């Protein structure tokens, strides 16, 4: 039965309530290869892998490991089969040390001999060339160190099939290179590696084969050497996609916001955004690019009056040309002086909306203070909800249906719809199309352009450089909490922006 095939998944189906995560998916993994599982956000990559790792249980389908059919009921079963998964949100215990996390759940002598454990782990570290302080607590570590702990944890358990879920999303280019080196090293040792990603360059540079998922269904598998970015994109999105996003020229741009030397500290007092300095204009879309966690969130929140720990100044120019300083103001105070500042945060259901409430009640989040007296008015929010449902085609049984039960695209329509309903002077959106299908995405781009044409100052944080380059007028690039450059989106290339995203020193490229 010596076979080259390590894992075979056949006809895997998984539903969450009415949401289809995977429908009849097949997948094969060979010995000693790196397989990319490629797909857009929400295409079901992670759910599929979670079923290999024993986190989810498939509704239907068969899984074979080394030719034998298996049932994987728990992560323990997965380990026993040599399958280890590194989740996007690391599964580590913050208050324990690296060594303690690595040996978690393993059998062995009752009494813990930490010195022996550390010696064993150290051998493993040396074998693959990791650097790690085994006595450090997880909460003291950087993201890349935590990821190392996760990988070592899996190797220490003898995993020879390693699944990594979007491993580079939070890494710097140097860290990514180092990770890839380690992965190639492991392949050389005969391990099979599955990497979930939606980044084409990584797929092409790292993997041997690529399997593509689209909307929960299996599209096909190709050898990387036969694939190009174009062909993979086609598989991913289904049809040839030309990013045909409208981009009108700004009309009478006037300086609207001036962010002056803003530094934001996190709860532990560490700088997460340092000395940001830029201006935003009316009638334009200013894109913000950067690796995840480079200070995008903090930048938007500091403008929105949601960041308590910051220094520097934020100036706003109203229609009459008067400058107002927003620096010390809370979100509520900004609203009270009549500035309509709309904000679509990254965390839609955890920040922008209340998941358990319906559309009407979510509309009230912005307007419930209106009117005098003790009672909140419901009539207008209800009408607004009906209007948004109609206008943007939100699919929901009623405006009282909890938004948390809607699909991602509909949730985003509700949120964006509410934010633009106030005809904002400044509109900030973070990752507006994350998890949305192509149609919904284009609808959102159109909404942003509409605001731009009305003369709003639109700021859009994005992750897809192609989109940012096609949609925005200028792109501000953040790298490690610093503004590394501002480029003209009409002339800049992807490489140029990519370089800025990873540059260490600060340089101003004024557009």
């Amino acid at each position, binding site marked *: 039965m010596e076979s080259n095939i390590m894992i075979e998944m056949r006809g895997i189906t998984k539903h969450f309530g009415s949401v289809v995560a995977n429908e009849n998916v097949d997948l094969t993994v060979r010995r000693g290869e790196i397989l990319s599982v490629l797909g857009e956000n929400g295409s079901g990559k992670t759910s599929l892998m979670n079923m290999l790792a024993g986190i989810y249980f498939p509704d239907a389908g068969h899984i074979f490991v080394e030719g034998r059919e298996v049932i994987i009921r728990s992560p323990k079963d997965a380990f026993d089969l040599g399958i280890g998964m590194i989740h996007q949100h690391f599964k580590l215990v913050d208050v324990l040390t690296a060594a303690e996390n690595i040996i978690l*759940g393993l059998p062995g002598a009752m009494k813990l001999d930490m010195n022996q454990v550390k010696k064993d782990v150290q051998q493993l570290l040396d074998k693959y060339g990791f650097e790690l302080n085994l006595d450090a607590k997880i*909460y003291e570590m950087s993201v890349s160190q935590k990821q190392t702990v996760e990988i070592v944890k899996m190797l220490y358990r003898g995993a020879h099939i390693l699944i990594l879920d979007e491993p580079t999303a939070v890494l710097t280019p140097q860290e990514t290179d180092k990770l890839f080196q380690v992965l190639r090293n492991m392949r050389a040792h005969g391990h099979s590696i599955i990497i979930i990603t939606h980044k084409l360059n990584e797929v092409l540079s790292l993997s041997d084969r690529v399997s593509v998922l689209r909307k929960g269904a299996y599209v096909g598998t190709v050898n990387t050497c036969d694939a190009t970015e174009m062909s993979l994109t086609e598989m991913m999105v289904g049809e040839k996609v030309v990013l045909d996003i409208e981009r009108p020229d700004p009309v009478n741009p006037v300086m609207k916001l001036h962010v002056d030397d803003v530094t934001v500290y996190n709860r532990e007092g560490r700088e997460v955004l340092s000395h940001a300095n830029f201006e935003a204009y009316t009638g334009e879309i200013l894109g913000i690019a950067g690796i995840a966690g480079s200070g995008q969130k903090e930048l938007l929140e500091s403008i929105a009056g949601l960041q308590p720990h910051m220094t520097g100044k934020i100036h706003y120019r109203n229609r009459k040309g008067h400058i107002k300083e927003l620096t010390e103001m809370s979100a509520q105070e900004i609203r009270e002086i009549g500035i309509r500042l709309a904000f679509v945060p990254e965390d839609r259901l955890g920040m922008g909306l209340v998941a358990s409430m319906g559309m009407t009640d979510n509309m009230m989040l912005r307007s419930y203070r209106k009117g005098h007296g003790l009672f909140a008015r419901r009539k207008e929010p209800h009408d607004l909800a009906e209007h948004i449902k109609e206008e943007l085609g939100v699919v929901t049984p009623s405006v009282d249906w909890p938004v948390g039960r809607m699909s991602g695209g509909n949730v985003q329509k509700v949120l964006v719809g509410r934010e633009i309903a106030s005809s904002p002077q400044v509109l900030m959106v973070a990752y507006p199309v994350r998890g949305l299908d192509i149609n919904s995405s284009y609808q959102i781009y159109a909404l942003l352009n509409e605001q731009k044409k009305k003369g709003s100052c639109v700021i859009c944080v994005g992750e897809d450089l192609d989109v940012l380059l096609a949609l925005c007028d200028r792109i501000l690039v953040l790298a490690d909490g610093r503004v590394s450059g501002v480029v003209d989106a009409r002339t800049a290339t992807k490489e140029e922006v990519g370089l800025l995203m990873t540059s260490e020193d600060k340089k101003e490229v004024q557009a």
Partner: protein
Amino acid sequence: MNVISVFLQKAITQGIPLLFGANGEILTEKSGNLNLGIPGLMYMGGVAGLIGAFLYEANVANPIPFVGMLISVICCLLCSALGALIYSVLTITLRANQNVTGLALTTFGMGFGNFFGGSLSRLAGGVGQLSTATTASAFRAKIPFLTDIPVVGELLFGYGWLTYFCLIITFALSFFLFKTRVGLNLRAVGESAATADAAGINVNRYKYIATIVGGMMAGLGGLYFVMEYTGGTWVNNGFGDRGWLAIALVIFARWRPLNAIWGSFLFGGLYILYLYIPGLTRDMQEIFKSLPYLVTIVVLVITSLRKKREDQPPASLGLPYFRESRG
């Protein structure tokens, strides 16, 4: 014996049931379960031990103290384990709210204790005042000669075996939590059930066992009170609010069993301090009785101010775990 030595001895006597309860709650909370049913479990353990001893003494002509003791310990452990099992099934398997389930268990357990403790003699056919003095004598037996050592004899050796057993349990629990693999796994379950699960730990089994064993430890606290402290009889609500003090002690000890030892002596001392302060009027005595609770609040506030990671409650305390919940 001077007053201070007597005070210390009494403080320890008062502290032991708290220490039992706190140990049980620490073990339970380390698995992520906030069991507010511990006060109820202490009542259940106490009354079950009493019933066991009572039935034994009532049905045997010449009861042997040691056998009575064995029976009452077993009854106590079984009953408190059963109570903790109810809590476990409801919160772990059926994912009911932990606070509410715990409070329901305390209601049930206190009612259970007071009902059977109060009605026992009547249910058994009206034997008059309930007493299990023979069995209690085995609980209260002290090591001969050692107590005669001057000055420290009574202070160190003037207790029944449950006191020393309690201290042993505390040290063992501390060793278990911080020096063994299973203890490490348990702490991981309490900090992040999803992480522990992903590491191949059977989260539910850990939660069940920790909660049930924790409940049994707490039950022994009730037994100690009934047998050693009151000498084998039942007074309705005699155990009072000590169960909640045990939960307070867990916070005070910052989830470390060894801290709970001196904490329990301190709490025990504060609990009876009013008796030893000269010139206290009766009303002022009542004020003094609130000292342990005040001290706990102060500790609670200080730890929340310091925000030291290692001093915080287990991170997933009070949360149910469902592997397939999304996001």
